[in-house]
């Protein structure tokens, strides 16, 4: 889902505890928008206030468990897989997502910051959560995002000489270039159906 300005005022918050929690966290950290779909709380913060927002969430919302950090590439140029739903209208950007959760109850939130593609940087979370170090190194090599202030932003998984950022949507999957995946192209139709569907059985 893309961020839409109407996210904040979508439904009544009283019925859904996740929405209520999202609203509370969003007001605590001064978020731009929030959403709570499929029990997944999403709080959108500006990248300038990224570190402060997460520190506030840890100290004041009780979200002290650093679960993970990663990124999401919203791109019109999709080399493999399926494009986004309305690819034409899509705004090219990265979303950096960090998930914090509580260890007292099940409450948790995804903090999302939008990072423009022509200037992909965001401040490093390492001073707040030391455990973010590896996650940021992974996101940096996979998406090409610069985490400012990271003590050691070297490649984590990939060889040092590797070029490119594999998890970007524009990055081709070489094995697919050589040989298309049989599951996607030449599945034999089931006799009773009219469509490619053998994936399920």
């Amino acid at each position, binding site marked *: 889902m893309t961020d839409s300005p109407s996210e904040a005022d979508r439904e009544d918050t009283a019925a859904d505890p996740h929405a209520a929690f999202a609203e509370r966290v969003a007001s605590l950290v001064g978020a731009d928008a929030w959403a709570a779909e499929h029990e997944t709380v999403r709080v959108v913060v500006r990248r300038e206030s990224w570190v402060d927002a997460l520190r506030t969430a840890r100290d004041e919302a009780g979200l002290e*468990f650093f679960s993970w950090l990663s990124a999401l590439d919203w791109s019109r140029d999709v080399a*493999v*897989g*399926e494009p986004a739903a309305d690819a034409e209208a899509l705004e090219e950007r990265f979303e950096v997502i960090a998930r914090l959760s509580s260890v007292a109850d099940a409450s948790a939130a995804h903090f999302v910051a939008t990072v423009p593609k022509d200037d992909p940087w965001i401040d490093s979370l390492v001073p707040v959560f*030391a455990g973010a170090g*590896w996650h940021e190194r992974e996101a940096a090599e996979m998406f090409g995002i610069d985490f400012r202030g990271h003590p050691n932003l070297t490649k984590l998984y990939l060889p040092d000489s590797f070029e490119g950022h594999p998890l970007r949507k524009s990055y081709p999957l070489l094995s697919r270039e050589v040989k298309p995946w049989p599951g996607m192209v030449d599945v034999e139709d089931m006799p009773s*159906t009219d469509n490619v569907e053998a*994936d399920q059985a």
Partner: protein
Amino acid sequence: MTQLDPRVAMHLSDAAVSVELETPDMTLNIGPQHPSTHGVLRLVARVDGERVEAVEPVIGYMHRGYEKLAEVRTYAQTIALVNRIDWVSGFANEIPFVIAVEKLMDVEAPERAQYIRMILTEMARISSHLIFMSSYPLELGAATPLMHAFRERERILELIEGVTGGRFHPNFNRVGGVKPAAGGGSATKKLIQDLPAGFLQQARDAMDKVLTVCDDLDDLVTGNEVFQARTIGVGVVPRDKALEYGLSGPNLRASGVGFDLRKAEHILPYDGIDFEIPTGENGDCFDRYIVRLAEIRQAARIIQQAVDRIPSGPLQAKVPRVLKVPPGQAYVRAENPKGEMGYYIVSEGGRVPYRVKIRSASFSNLSILPWILENQLIPDLVAIMGSLDFVLGDVDR
């Protein structure tokens, strides 16, 4: 592996003796082929004699790029990928993924399927912890517990194989249930697939055996003075560090945090089951061991209760034959044997996910290594690393 010929190093230090005793640090490459790195982890350690001054883990030797691969596979195909992440508990890896897809599609598996999922997840937990019970004493030098633990693990794997057909990679979950009742590729001839005959009784018997081997392990390992001397007070992870580095599962609970997703969230019907969350007090290696041993017992309890109250009914909810997941985002996490395993699925309405972020427990559990191994002795390095119980497939994904 030699950067500086040890003989040269010795001569250098010999030469320095007359003026001033100088002991240059040595860089020791532990791994990627090393008995205690569980696969292909490499640690670059700067050692001063027996003392490790700093450690830089090098991972990625087994990076398979599952997050990218998932973007070009349909949801059903991805299930076969995800059970290869943490291969010692393959079944448990499938659970959060299928439930995330189910959530996005707004379907729910029938109750019997959920119970089967729960029983097999706990079996995967037992088998994973039994591997820890065998490999951890082995890393400290005791070889006998290995055989006892592996014997019972084999029983569990046979049960899992009986139900799913796979010992390690069950690929048994489907969106909306477990292996569908109608199969065989024909609409007229329906195969009824259910648990194999006698499975529930066999599971009961196996749990008795598992509880017995837990007692054996208590005798062999827990009370062993040398084992205690090697683990008590070694590798202490305080609560705040555990949370900061995202340690989860038994590693987190050993540090005194009584948080278990099986109690906190109910993606599987754990709410009707009576079990406890074992926690440690000091967060040392011994606590991490003892928490896992207690978890085996609790898992056996869960299975004993679950086989008694498993309802009958269908195994598969109605789902469209071509899985198209409505646009949306969902993150579902589950308490895996290694800790919190979660999948963040972003769907754009197609047959393949737009993005799948895999949160694997071992990755975060291992990221504490540079902090925790600083200024430890080489033998403690092995003891601490082993006590974190990681699987390289779960680290590298």
